[in-house]
């Protein structure tokens, strides 16, 4: 088992950047406005453009509204709620996690899970448990198949 060590060390080292990632800063007001407007759809009528990306006057107005809420110290949820009340549910860039809309979020992952089940079933089906072959037979110690094949091709020329 000691041979696994280098891999384990590398895996552990991989976590260092991750640790740096977790120590991210608290967002500034400006960053919050940017994030919030990134989750709201502009009501100007152009199809489905989020406020942060829309170039129209309406988007500028909505950004100002968001900024005012942020300055007033409102939480994200409150701000979204206020916008939904004022502009209707279509202002939210992504469906809320309630009622029928839960399906929007859940189904892609249900699909993912279902796909995983199918993959496992297919592999099981194609992989009979009775034909267990010894490992050594399949992998010659030094050269893998690819290189042996290259060699074979060369020799046959």
């Amino acid at each position, binding site marked *: 088992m000691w041979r696994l060590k280098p891999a384990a060390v590398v895996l552990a080292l991989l976590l260092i950047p991750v640790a740096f990632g977790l120590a991210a800063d608290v967002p500034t007001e400006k960053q919050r406005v940017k994030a919030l407007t*990134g989750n709201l759809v502009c009501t100007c009528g152009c199809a489905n453009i989020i406020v942060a990306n829309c*170039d129209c006057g309406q988007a500028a107005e909505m950004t100002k509204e968001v900024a005012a809420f942020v300055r007033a110290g409102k939480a994200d949820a409150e701000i979204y709620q206020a916008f939904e009340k004022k502009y209707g549910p279509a202002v939210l860039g992504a469906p809320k996690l309630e009622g029928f809309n839960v399906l929007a979020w859940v189904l892609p992952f249900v699909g993912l899970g279902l*796909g995983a089940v199918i993959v496992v079933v297919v592999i099981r089906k194609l992989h009979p448990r009775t034909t267990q072959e010894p490992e050594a037979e399949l992998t010659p110690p030094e050269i893998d198949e690819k*290189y042996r094949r290259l060699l074979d091709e060369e020799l046959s020329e």
Partner: protein
Amino acid sequence: MIELGQYCLFAALVLSAYGMAIGAFGGVRKSLPLVRSAENAVVAAFGILVATSVSLWYLLLTDQFGVQYVAQYSAAKMPAVYKFAAFWGGQSGSLLLWALVLSFFSCLVVVQNRHRNRELMPFTVSILMGILLFFTVLLNFLTNPFDVLARTPMDGQGLNPLLQNGYMVIHPPALYLGYISLSLPFAFAIAALISGKLDTSWIRTTRRWTLISWVFLTFGIALGAMWAYEELGWGGYWAWDPVENASFMPWLIATAFLHSVMITEKKGMLKTWNFILVLMAFELSIFGTFITRSGVISSVHSFALSNLGPFFVVFLATTALFSVFWIFYRSPQLRSEQRMKSFLSREASFLLNNWLFLSICFAVFWGTVFPILSEWVQGEKISVSAPFFNNVNLPLGLALLILTGVCPLIAWRKASAKNFRRNFLYPLAAGFATGLVAVVLGVRSLIPLVFFSACGFVMATIFFEFYKGARARQGIRPTGFLVALKDLAVMNKRRYGGFIIHAGVVLVFFGIIASSFFRLEENFNVRQGEFFKIGDYTLAFKGLTQRSDPEKDVVTARLDVLKNGAKVAEVQPEKHFHHKSEQPMTEVSIRPTLKEDLYVVLAGWDQQGVVSFHVFVNPMVQWIWIGIGIMVLGGLFVMFPTPKLSAAQARRTEEEEAKDVAA
């Protein structure tokens, strides 16, 4: 010319109906004269559609505004190149383009297969002509590009100014070539099912056409993204707009197919699955054409405007049912020829790849149709836009990226713990090093760090594949390293072309993550002569100028770009006021570098001389285009025959490739 167009369009309908019926009949009767006659109908249909298209182009270029289509999408003062591109500016013209290109590809198939794939050809022809029949019916009876107006207007309305740029000239045809070429794998696959000739020949033909289609789709999607980036002025390139999604979905399925078809070719497994993938890719390409052109999804209200919806639904359902019937009918012959050896085999890893591609496709599809579903079920219009797609696809994308690195390291059949460790150690170390470099360079948020590390890992696996392969070759035949590298790639183009594509994919991921997470964005209000700063740049506003041309008035802002006190560039963002359009158009000015793009939008100005700019610094965007360029080149590399090999040699290599059942 109008009459000519109308007659030709009708003749195309008759020819495609004839080709469909006689092709199938000849195939069932095994009558060569009948089949040849159907094939001739294919060639004739192409000729007649060329004539139809030339008529439409003639009408567009000679400003015949009596024709409704010309009046709607062209205008007298429009530059000729846009009059030419107005051909596909609207619904009926783009459907005509569909028909034209489909008939061209069909014609190509007929010529290529005069003496090949003979058992398949009758049904292939019949299916292709069936698809053409659908489009010619739409064109003749529902959305005829040659419809005449009761009163001829003085001038046409002109192409939407947003579309009047170089991308409009090539982006739609490129994407359409991609969509339409997906009809060919479909036709060959179904022909194989009908004829019962289910050996590897259909797979090879299908794989080739899918690859061609994949290259066009990749290129077309990239052009669309570039168009959005340079024309829409919001600093981004992908908005998860339904039309964008529609082009992305067939691409995902085609990519999944190009992977799983390798298992079928090499191991004789998953045959049914490949038929399903080909079918899905085809259906999604039709679906894509449909939502691009009908506007069903982006705005639910335009549904009434387009009378094509029900026809497309019926066509999609018919083709799907027809295909599923044949897959079921032939399922006894589609059994797997070999057993899988392990969960840790390359076959299994390809299944994982397919699983992720399909999951992403499903997530995109679901998000795209959910607003309709919601309005239908709960009577409430909601939005499903970028935040949804980004959140859902982020984990899936990461998994896919990691798999890009992991899968090629897993050998066919069974991988042992030992070669596993040996293969993974250096790439993992490279991933770690990349993450560390990113931290040193100041990246402090989790998601980009994970993605960058994954990018480094995958790049390293690709690098080692080439390195080890070339070294092994040098061991066999002593040459320089580069020669060995070239020989290696040419010898197994599919394998190493695939790796080239993967390298492109890594760059695209890198560019997307960097530009989405580290974009700077700021609004500035300045007067002439004032300076402002964003990122490393200082911009000096030199003033506004105005000019006019027959089509529009243009206001240009001139700014100097300074970096470390020295002038490095000049940018000139503009605003265009087209005479035919109320909305002013933004012309972005971009200063691209490999590190970042300075992206300047002229947002507006007031009477007091205060001018406002919307400025972005988008890191690494150019890497996305470079990455896609590499992907396309990789695809072309796989596709094109090696010039050095003789035909006989090439055939031999191919047979070997097809056999290639590793020891």
